[in-house]
């Protein structure tokens, strides 16, 4: 009898769960159709790995810093003269646009470096606050950053040029050759901007190149329909 009751409860719970997730996905499917320049990446079963990094004020920055607020997040490196400054400017314009529109929720601006060996917290602070005083830069352990970027689908590789001009591509877990920190290296990387929800989960992504005005339309829509 008890077993039958438990089975019955289990079946009902399963039906409710299926109904809930189906309707949830259905809602987001409808929302996805209205988006102009972004994609919903929401997967409630797949959270971010536990991480503990350092922000540009030398405070701990971990999973809790993404909770209870909306966040716009990008990954950059400061030795990048083209793609990263453009993305940072876009994030700042996006934020200003939302403020000008008088929206209730304006996401925080966070940027994590692909390159903590050169981008220390103090380097990031000077660099990022030039683009927007509200930016928070995050540096820290390279291995943890490598783990953290995976669920975002973000990726980078370092390119070291020899004196004869020959490039060597290093995957993110390969060590830099001796002297590369001094002689310099480039980083090929993905350049999406992500929107994280107040549960600290990846919610949507904006591929490059970015149009911050249209992005603002999508951000409003995404937050309103969460």
């Amino acid at each position, binding site marked *: 009898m008890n077993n039958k009751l438990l089975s019955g409860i289990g079946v009902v719970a399963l039906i409710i769960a299926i109904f809930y997730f189906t309707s949830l996905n259905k809602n987001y499917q409808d929302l996805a159709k209205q988006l102009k320049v972004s994609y919903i990446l929401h997967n409630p079963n797949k959270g971010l790995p536990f991480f503990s990094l350092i922000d540009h004020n030398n405070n701990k920055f971990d999973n809790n810093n993404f909770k209870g607020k909306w966040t716009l997040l990008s990954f950059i490196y400061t030795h990048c003269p083209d793609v990263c400054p453009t993305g940072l400017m876009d994030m700042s314009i996006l934020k200003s646009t939302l403020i000008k529109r008088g929206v209730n929720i304006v996401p925080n601006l966070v940027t994590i470096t692909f390159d903590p060996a050169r981008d220390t917290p103090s380097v990031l602070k000077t660099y990022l606050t030039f683009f927007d005083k509200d930016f928070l830069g995050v540096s820290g352990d390279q291995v943890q950053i490598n783990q953290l970027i995976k669920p975002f689908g973000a990726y980078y590789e370092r390119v070291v040029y020899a004196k004869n001009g020959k490039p060597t591509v290093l995957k993110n877990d390969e060590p830099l050759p001796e002297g590369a920190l001094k002689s310099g290296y480039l980083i*090929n990387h993905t350049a999406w901007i992500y929107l994280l929800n107040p549960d600290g989960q990846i919610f949507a992504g904006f591929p490059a190149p970015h149009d911050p005005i249209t992005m603002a339309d999508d951000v409003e829509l995404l937050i309103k329909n969460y």
Partner: protein
Amino acid sequence: MFNKTKKLILTFTMLTILNVSTAMENHHTNHTATEIVINDPWVRSAPPNAPALGLFMQINNNTNHDIKLLSVNVSGYKRIELHKTVVQGDMMKMVKQEFMPIPAKGKLHLKPGSWHIMLISPESVLRKGDTVMIDLVFDNGLSKTVRAQVRNGKKMTGNHHSMMY
């Protein structure tokens, strides 16, 4: 007397050489000015600790031959490289270039997300509104000096919400 004549001849010869070389230089400059025209050279304003800056412009080649931009000289930088941002799937790759090709009777637009000149390790980062002299060296033996202005890369214009580089 003989010495005086000799001195006169020497002076005359020197003046003639100087005149010819100045004329040649002027001719060369005018020649370059019409063959290669640089429009809107600018450096993107950057944070005071930026390790690398982007330099952009439009290079017009009015000759009947393809030309190559081989190198760029700007004082105050440890190294200057020619680059192109290449998109491969989701990856943005910054690829170092040996030269930049400018087709005959054509142009090459150096702009964010595309061809650009990378100014590496500045002695000091220029501020918005500053100008900087740039020497461009081409493979046809010509060179060009232009003044580039430091400005924001992107801004909102008017009420139309349009973006411009």
